[in-house]
């Protein structure tokens, strides 16, 4: 089966996000005052796996071993069969 995993990576809540702060300030320049902005990224990976549980294990490994740094980032996986 072919699966698509969307892996969302975000700085942990207690970690500063200077990019988010810069966006907040830029939104202020647009007249859109906001309380806070947190940034992150999403990585979309398409791959083959025997079944959904194997696909989830693989996607979690990708997040843990490469895509997120557990010291400062959290990640979340959305998985779908394609």
């Amino acid at each position, binding site marked *: 089966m072919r699966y698509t995993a969307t892996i969302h990576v975000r700085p942990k809540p207690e970690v*500063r996000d200077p990019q988010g702060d810069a966006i907040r300030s830029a939104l202020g320049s647009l007249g859109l005052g906001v309380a806070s902005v947190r940034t992150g990224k999403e990585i979309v990976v398409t791959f083959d796996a025997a079944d959904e549980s194997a696909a989830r294990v693989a996607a979690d490994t990708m997040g843990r071993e*490469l895509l997120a*740094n557990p*010291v*400062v980032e959290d990640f979340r996986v959305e998985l779908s069969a394609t």
Partner: protein
Amino acid sequence: MVRVAILRFPGTWSERDFAHALEVAGAETEILWHDDARLAGFDAAIVPGGFAYGDYVRAGAIARLSPAVAELRRFADEGGAVLGSCNGFQILCEAGLLPGALTRNVGLEFRCDWVRMRVESDATPFTRGLRGDLVRMPIAHGEGCWTADEATIDRVERDGLVAFRYVDERGAATPDANPNGSANNIAGLRNEAGNVVGLMPHPERCAEEVLGGVDGLRVLNSLVTSLGTSPALAVR
């Protein structure tokens, strides 16, 4: 003669500067390409600055998975002296050889400047006899904000793992002296054993008067002297 290996990844940019500066310090150097790096027979290994593997994903994240870093981990476990500067420090943290992580500078600016630091620990071959000294070195980085959870920050302070701290000309660790927002003005760390050291500044770029300072040479001289006089530190 002390033999120092300098690792070179695709995107490393400071390896020849390190080779030159280490030769000024009296070491014999060899630059090793990442896919066939063998550290047996070397006394020390340097992970220089640059953008290893383009720093895609995160600074140092892909380098962590390379065979050269597996070899570096073996070398460090056996007590070999390892120094990571700038991107090398980022790689050592990503590899778990040093605690914490280096994140985007507060303010988002890439900082290319001179900084002042106090040497906080002399329990490393790179800082023998330098504890308490103020040193000036160049920096050039966008992701040098050292960050960790509170327990880790407490541990590095309590166990004396802070090797270098950003300070002002009077030796005070002020926010203005901190170029990137690092926790507790931490500029460099050592591991528990003291054989692994990482720092954001570039000792190799201040090893001759013509470059504006020689404080980097003091770090490299310390390595040559430490390994030359205490062979127990050297991996043969």
